[in-house]
C-alpha cells in the first residue's frame, strides 16, 4: 500500500493513469444507471469538458484569453462531418484527423496570439470566432451553407449486445475523448511544459531571463488548447450527428470562457464543474422559468435573465469560481482541525 502511494506521489504519469481509470469506471457505471436522456446530457458534458479543459490550461496556466475557441470547435466538427459523411471514414481515424486539422489551424492563430496581450488578444480571437463561420456560407457546396452537414449516427459494436442504447454509446465515445484530454493535460500541467507556462504567465521577463522562449511557450499552450477544442467539436458532431454554422455562434465561445471562469480558472477539476454547469444550467433555468405562470414574453426570456444573474452574482460572490470556493472551504476546515 505504501509502495503504491509513493509511486503515485512521485510519478505524474502513474497519477494521471489512476485518475483516468477511476474516471472511466465511474463513467461506465453512471452511463449504465441513468436514462437515455441523461446519457445524452452526459455526452454533452463530456465534449464540453474536452474544450473547457484545453481552454483552462490556456487561460489559467498560460494566462491568455481566447474568445475564439468556438470557431476551433467548428473546425473539428466540420472535419469529422466531411470525413464521415462524404468520405465514409471510420469514427476513430476521422476524429484523429479532426484533431490534427484543428491543431494545424491553431498553429498560425497561436503564433499570432503569442504577440498579443489581454484585450488585443481578446479582440483578435473574437474576430476569428465571427469570421471563420462565414467560410461555411462562402462555400455552400462544400460545407452545406446554413443547413450544414449531417452524418449517420455511430453504431454501437455488436459485442455490446443488440439492444445497447445509442445514447450510451455516444456517451462512451465522448467519454473516451474526454479521458484522452484529461490524461494529456494532466501530464502537461505536471511536466516541465506546465511549469514553463506558469513561469511565463507570472512574469514574462523573468521567464525569458531564465532562458524560456515566451512566444514559443504561449504558442504551445494555444496549439494544445486548439487540439482539445477540435476534439470537442469532433465529438459534438458525432453526438449531434450534425455540423452547421448555427451550432458555433459567438455565444459558444463566450460560454466556454464563462464555464472556465465559473468552474475555477486553471484547474482540470474546475473544467469538470464548468462542463456540468454549461450542460445543466440551461435545463435548470428553463425549469425555473416554467414553474411560474408568466406571460410568454416574460417566460421566454426568463432562462436568459437567470443565466445573466447567475454570472453576475457568481463573479461578485465567488471570484475564484467553484473550485476556488471549495478549496477555500476545505482549507478552512483543515485549518480548524489542525488547531483543535
Amino acid at each position, binding site marked *: 500500500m505504501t509502495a503504491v502511494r509513493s509511486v503515485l506521489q512521485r510519478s505524474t504519469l502513474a497519477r494521471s493513469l489512476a485518475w483516468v481509470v477511476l474516471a472511466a469506471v465511474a463513467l461506465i457505471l453512471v452511463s449504465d444507471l441513468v436514462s437515455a436522456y441523461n446519457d445524452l446530457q452526459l455526452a454533452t458534458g463530456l465534449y464540453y469538458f474536452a474544450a473547457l479543459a484545453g481552454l483552462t490550461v490556456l*487561460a489559467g496556466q498560460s494566462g491568455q*484569453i481566447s474568445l475564439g475557441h468556438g470557431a476551433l470547435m467548428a473546425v473539428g466538427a466540420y472535419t469529422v462531418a466531411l470525413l464521415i459523411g462524404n468520405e465514409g471514414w471510420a469514427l476513430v481515424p476521422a476524429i484523429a484527423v479532426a484533431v490534427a486539422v484543428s491543431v494545424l489551424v491553431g498553429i498560425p492563430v497561436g503564433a*499570432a496570439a503569442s*504577440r*498579443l*496581450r*489581454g*484585450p*488585443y488578444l*481578446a*479582440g*483578435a480571437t*473574437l*474576430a*476569428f470566432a*465571427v*469570421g*471563420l*463561420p*462565414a*467560410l461555411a*456560407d*462562402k462555400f455552400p457546396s462544400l460545407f452545406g451553407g446554413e443547413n450544414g452537414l449531417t452524418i449517420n449516427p455511430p453504431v454501437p459494436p455488436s459485442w455490446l449486445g443488440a439492444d445497447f442504447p445509442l445514447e450510451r454509446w455516444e456517451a462512451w465515445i465522448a467519454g473516451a475523448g474526454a479521458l484522452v484530454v484529461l490524461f494529456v493535460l494532466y501530464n502537461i500541467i505536471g511536466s516541465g511544459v506546465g511549469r514553463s507556462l506558469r513561469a511565463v504567465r507570472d512574469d*514574462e*521577463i523573468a521567464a525569458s531571463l531564465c532562458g524560456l522562449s515566451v512566444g514559443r511557450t504561449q504558442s504551445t499552450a494555444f496549439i494544445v488548447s486548439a487540439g482539445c477544442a477540435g476534439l470537442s467539436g469532433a465529438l459534438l458532431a458525432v453526438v449531434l450527428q450534425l455540423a452547421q454554422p448555427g451550432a458555433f455562434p*459567438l455565444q459558444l465561445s*463566450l460560454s466556454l*470562457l*464563462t464555464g472556465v*471562469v*465559473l468552474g475555477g*480558472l486553471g484547474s482540470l477539476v474546475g473544467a469538470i464543474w464548468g462542463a456540468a454547469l454549461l450542460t445543466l444550467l440551461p435545463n435548470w433555468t428553463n425549469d425555473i422559468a416554467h414553474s411560474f405562470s408568466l406571460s410568454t*414574453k*416574460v417566460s*421566454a*426570456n*426568463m*432562462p*436568459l*435573465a437567470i*443565466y*445573466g*444573474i*447567475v*454570472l*453576475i452574482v*457568481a*463573479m*461578485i460572490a465567488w*471570484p*475564484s469560481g467553484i473550485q476556488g470556493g471549495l478549496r477555500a472551504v476545505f482549507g478552512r476546515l483543515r485549518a480548524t482541525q489542525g488547531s483543535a
Partner: protein
Amino acid sequence: VTKFIDLTLSGISDGAVYAAVALALVLIWRATRIVNFAQGAMLMITTFIASAIINSSGHYWLGFVVALAAGLVFGALVERVLIRPVESAPPLNAVILTLGLYTLLVAAAGMIWGNTPRSFPPAFSLRGYDVGGTRLLFTPNDTFIVLVVIAVAIGLAALFRLTPLGLQMRAAAFAPEVARLLGVRVARMFTVGWALAAVAGALAGVLVAPSVFLGPNSFDPILISGFVAAVLGGLDSPPGAVIGGLSLGVGLSYVSGYAGSSLVPLAALVILVAVLMLRPGGLFAASSERRV
C-alpha cells in the same frame, strides 16, 4: 466611380457609428482596464427608452436627449453597483461579469418590449442627396451622424486636455495610487469614465437604430465592429478609436460592395490581424513599455 463614392460615403457613415461605440469602449478601458461587453446591451436599453419617449410624446429630440441622460445615469450606476466589487479581482472576472450583464439586459429588454425588432425614426431625411442628377447613397441623416460623432470626439479630446476634470481622469487612469495621494478621487473618476462612455454608447444606439431596427439583439454586430475598431486604433487612444472606426467602416464597405457582403466578417478578421501583427498595441498605441 459613382459606386466608389457611394461606398466611401456609406462606409464613413457606418464608420462614424463604429467610432462612437469604440469611443465608449476606449473610455471604459482607460478608466478601469475593463472591456465592457455589456456596452451593446446598455445602448440597446437606452435606445428602447428613447423609442418609448418618442412614441408617447411625438418629439424626436426629447427622446434623443433622454437617451443620452439615461446613458449617463446607467453607466454610473453599473460602475458603482456591479463593476466596483470586481475591480480588484482577476481581469477575466470583469469580462464574465459584463457578459452576464449583457445577457441579463437582453433578456430584460425581451421581457419588457418583446423580441420582434421595431422601427426607429431617423433624425433627418433618409433620401440621398441629388448631385448632378444622380442620387447619392449619402443622406442628410448620414451627415448628421458623422457631424455628431466628430463633435463628440472633439468634445472628449477637449475635456481630457483642457479641463481639470479631464486631467484628474487621466491621472486616475495612468497612476491610480499617485493620483490618490495627490487628492484625486480616483473611484469617482472611474464612475465618471463609465458614465461618459455610456453616453457615447447611447448616442451610437440612437444614431444607428433607424438602419438596423430596434430589438434586443440588434446591436450585437455593432458592438463587435466597435470592439474591432477600438482594438485597431489602440484601446488607450480616443483619436485612435475614431480613426479606427472610420477606416474599418470604409474598408468593410468596399469589401461588401466589391466582393460580397458574406466576406465582411472574414475581412474584418484579416484587417485586424494584419494591423495587430505590425503593431500589437493598435495603430495609435503609446510607446509600449512593459513593467518589470
